């Protein structure tokens, strides 16, 4: 949205800082390049490849958890991996979001009966968006990101409402 088209010359726009941050946050969801299993091929590699090109949405991969906003859990999490997932989540700066991609990350998927597999990554870290599929197509992941964006936008309203009730 080009602000200069909506407002006249020499005008000022008033916006709450939190609101401004949320606008900025929504537009550049950088995910961590952290592929666990098969879903990583579809959700991370093809997603940044030439056909799906998530860069168009401002969604791009970063190699370090310190620089990322979103963690896509793309694959089966077992007990050995769970500790690492938790640790990586803790290393990410706030605000942070988690997308559980694929059946394994949502519920344990086809491997949920094996005692070594964690039945869904939400047992380890809080999840914002679940994407079903085995593996989900890159389009699904794109839709998941759009859902996450609208979720962040909705957060602004919630935050404003709670701020109003606090000040009352």
């Amino acid at each position, binding site marked *: 949205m080009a602000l200069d088209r909506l407002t006249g010359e020499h005008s000022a726009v008033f916006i709450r800082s939190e609101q401004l941050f949320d606008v900025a946050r929504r537009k550049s969801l950088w995910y961590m390049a952290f592929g666990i299993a098969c879903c990583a091929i579809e959700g991370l590699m093809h997603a940044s490849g030439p056909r799906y090109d998530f860069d168009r949405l401002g969604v791009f991969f970063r190699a370090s958890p310190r620089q990322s906003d979103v963690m896509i859990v793309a694959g089966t999490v077992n007990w050995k991996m769970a500790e690492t997932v938790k640790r990586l989540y803790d290393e990410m700066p706030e605000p942070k979001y988690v997308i559980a991609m694929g059946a394994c990350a949502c519920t344990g998927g086809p491997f949920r009966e094996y*005692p070594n597999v964690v039945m869904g990554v939400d047992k380890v870290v809080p999840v914002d968006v679940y994407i079903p599929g085995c*593996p989900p197509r890159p389009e699904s992941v794109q839709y998941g990101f759009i859902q996450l964006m609208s979720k962040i936008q909705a957060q602004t309203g919630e935050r404003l409402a709670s701020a109003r009730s606090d000040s009352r």
Partner: protein
Amino acid sequence: MPQPDLTVVRSALERAGVAVSIEEVACLGVVCRVSADSARAAVATLRDSDLAFDFLIDLFGIDTGEAIDVVYHLRSFSRDEEIVVKAAHDYDGVLASIWDLLPAALMPERELCELFGLSLLGHPNPKRLLTTDGCAPYLRKFVEIRSDEEVRDRSTQHVNPKRLARAAGSIAAEEPMVAPDAPSATQDGIVAPGTFQPTLLPAGLRRAPAGVDQVTTEHLVLSMGPQHPSTHGVLRLNLEIDGEEVVGAEAIIGYLHRGIEKLAESRRYHTIGTLLDRGDYLAGIHSELALALATEKLLEVESPRRANYLRVMLGELNRIASHITWYGPAGLDAGAMGPFLYTFRDRELLLDILEDVTGARMMFNYVRPGGVLRDFTTTAEAKIRHFLDVFAVHIEENDEILMGNEIFQARTQGLGVFSREAALGFGLTGANLRASGVSWDIRRDRPYAAYNEMDFDIPLSEVGDVYARTAVRLDEMRQAARIVRQCIDGLPEGEFTAKVPKVLRPPVGEAYAAVESPRGELGVHIVSDGSDTPYRMRYRPPALYALQAGETLLPGGLIADAVVLMGSMDVVLGEIDR
């Protein structure tokens, strides 16, 4: 499958003092049964005698209900023969390591011991491989998988077995699986500061002689992974580094261990493909095909000619897709972003074709025992022809972008050289083996499906370095495109599946079938007890053998080369951890 002469095997083993009973098992070949104590001697004899069984295809266990059968599957390349050695071990018995005879056994032995609860004797690194402390020996029959109720009720709280074990005080730290009276293994681990003697340095690197100005160097242990953008999955490398140079390396795996072999014991035969697809997730058709071939051997069913052609065609398309997924990131490892974007342009076309025919982009479950799931679609033919025309141009572009790049050449030529002996000793297969000068391809030497009707060359290289492996894989893509064209031109009419019952109940027996997957010899070993689910299914992971071979080459190189080297082995962690 060519089989060795029974009398020669018997006399060789008896001369070495090994009591043996030899039988010929249909679908599997010659099986020598020896006692647990003489298993090591039997393998040594078979390796050193004229029989020359110097290649370990696979090493795994079977819980028979009375004991654990440890299975050594050996091959002799010089005589082109295969043999199986079985040794029954007690449930809390000791496995004598054979890693000094056949270094390929290093990781499979660790895996066997933790998943069956055996102790390991004489192994240099007797730690758990796939699971954490406190995990049960999952492949034993008494360990049950989660029940339906437990799985449906998502409110069940499961606790990390490692935490449980720690809380119970049963383990203090990483618990090695050593036999109680084991001799202490030589620790090639962390060296005390100042005592480091540099090994042979790579060309172009100079080092001040040790002790100049009383400067001693200290080593840093760097944990690379499991989250690292260039380790190709959840591989963790513990590198001990001295400056830029790698002194010691250990690959830690198991971050994707999800029990494909265990779960297969509770699945019907035509649904196991679902699990195997997710094992080697880049080449699903191949692992399904290995399973289908093994099941067909037991059922004595032959798939129709049209099905064989479809299997070959989709297998080769999948091979190109898999090699592409390796080739692009191989450039990324060396610092080139371009090849990734160029190769994924082709992969999208390939996935479109595979989706058209099989219905899924990656997880096909298309090849079934008896044939394939459904017939070739009318729209796919035009797509395949279009792809072949486009790919003939694109492959030359890709070749030039990466292989023609002087920086890439300088970084990869002479790096990570495997001699012919080392490659065979470590159990390398596929393109990794062919890059070291061994002309072995299951498609040609043990033809399956319709490969005996196809005309194709097998790319070879004598050099054995990273550049050679890249070149061999690139040539394989060209040959695969050639095979696909032959298939689409000569696709016969007829049935796409043989008449098989809906619920398969193969007769009691064992079968091993191997296919040439993009990563090498992918084998499936099935033990059937006559019911509708296999008693034991073993999946031979070619990438596991490639990984442990790559691990041994890391010390002495630079840390930046470690990434390129491990990338060149083409490891897929789903297959390694299973």
